[in-house]
């Protein structure tokens, strides 16, 4: 099994990554999920995080099968 890591909107374009499946053994927290894909840059303060389709913080624990998403400030409506 794996952790699914997703990126949206401008962040997706900037990183050139939309979705990545990563071995759950190397990911304990949301921060680990970011580092597993974006090794060259710390998680920016303005980037929003979702864990299993709900807003979350970077210190939240991640389990096998979870989906973590990173995205810029929202601009709907």
């Amino acid at each position: 099994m794996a952790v699914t890591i997703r990126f949206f909107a401008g962040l997706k374009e900037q990183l050139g990554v939309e979705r990545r499946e990563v071995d759950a053994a190397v990911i304990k927290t949301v921060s680990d999920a970011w580092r597993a894909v974006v090794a060259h840059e710390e998680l920016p303060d303005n980037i929003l995080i979702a864990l299993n389709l709900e807003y979350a913080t970077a210190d939240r624990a991640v389990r096998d099968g979870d989906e973590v998403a990173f995205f810029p400030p929202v601009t709907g409506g």
Partner: protein
Amino acid sequence: MKVRIVEDSFDPWTVLAEYEAEHSAAGGNIGATATFVGTMRDFNEGVAVNSMTLEYYPGMTEKHLQQIGAAIAQLHSLVDWLIVHRVGRMQPGEPIVLVAAWSAHRVEAFAACREIMEDLKAHAPFWKKEQLTDGERWVEHNTPG
């Protein structure tokens, strides 16, 4: 169904009429209906905008809107509520969002409609990308309500 994400242009007034007909929202316990319709402008931050693409997070966006709609509806004792939001490529003048709140009295309908809209603008996972005459740009933040 309280939350709808639509990929094609929609007429908010037709949607409202159909919703009321289907859900008996125009029943005798309704004293007030407040609606908000947001449409796409042909300018933003001083620049002409030719078209716009709205991205969302399928699954999370609907879940978030359902949660805030239900919470605000309970807070204001709404009889019913509806959120419709467009995604994909759209043109100036086309509706982006419809929020409707039905209640016994106007104070609850007005308040709930505004609160749903403000939460949607601040937290619902949607992202706008504008197509300009000389390229594209992501909208970085929403204007204050």
